[in-house]
């Protein structure tokens, strides 16, 4: 193979590689969110749910065949009689936030309609944690897995 041909093939592959590399990324900051603590109740009613920031997320989609949805799920079930919901703000460009989505161990859409060319960061993540009186007293870390999906 001639050196010129090597250069041309290399350049072509480089372009393909670059397109693939930038196709899609999803990241959150921080990786460890603040603790959500239920601390109060109105007498006669279930404890008051608490909401807190989960930081922000960034998403990049540059490939037409890539992902259009962000999903979220738990790595393991929550303690009994508790629920955790997450809201991801829309990254704009026509993408739609699904609002507060109650998390389970099954992936559920939290943002849909991601355009094929999107580079958005600083989009807010908000969690809401609730517990009934039957949940008792507890403290437990949980892992929330966000993913890009077709």
């Amino acid at each position: 193979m001639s050196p010129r041909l090597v250069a041309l093939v290399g350049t072509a592959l480089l372009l393909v590689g670059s397109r693939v590399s930038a196709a899609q990324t999803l990241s959150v900051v921080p990786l460890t969110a603040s603790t959500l603590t239920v601390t109060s109740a109105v007498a006669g009613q279930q404890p008051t749910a608490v909401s807190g920031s989960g930081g922000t997320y960034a998403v990049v989609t540059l490939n037409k065949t890539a992902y259009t949805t962000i999903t979220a799920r738990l790595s393991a079930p929550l303690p009994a009689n508790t629920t955790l919901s997450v809201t991801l703000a829309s990254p704009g460009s026509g993408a739609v936030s699904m609002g507060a989505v109650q998390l389970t161990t099954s992936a559920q859409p939290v943002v849909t309609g991601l355009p094929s060319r999107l580079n958005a960061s600083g989009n807010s993540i908000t969690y809401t944690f609730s517990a009934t009186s039957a949940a008792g007293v507890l403290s437990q870390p949980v892992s929330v897995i966000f993913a890009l999906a077709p």
Partner: protein
Amino acid sequence: MNTRIARRGALAIALLTFGLARSASAQTSTTQSVTVAVNAINQIAFTGSPSLTITTAAAGSNPTSVSDASATWAVTTNQTGAKITGSIASALPAGITLSVSLAAPTGGAVSAGSQALGTTAVDLVTGITKLAQGSLGVTYTLSATAAAGVLSSTPRVVTYTITGGT
């Protein structure tokens, strides 16, 4: 010339390697850790301001006691074995007794029935476990002996306290 082209080829391949390396690092999922917690919660509330007046007696007997069941109470606890106590800030005049009975919530709690209130707290409901319940009955009873004489209308504050379980 060939040397320059060869260098371009090498550069391209090097950049390709870099590009593919970036490709391998493309991240389509990420995990965030969130700690969820619930603190001990013990809340009670009482509604109503009953008024009790003794007005009659059967001849030869002490005055007839009166009761009022217009007040209610509510409780939320996420602990096991919480209890409610009651007391008044200052003692009633001699011969006057104010008693209270709290209805027990569900789930195995036990009402102590009608208990005379004094400056020392008395148990009214015990064994309250992990519940949220309202509209529970409160019954006050005022009794007096003939020796108590006439008592002008005097407000009394009853203090209820919930003590958390475990």
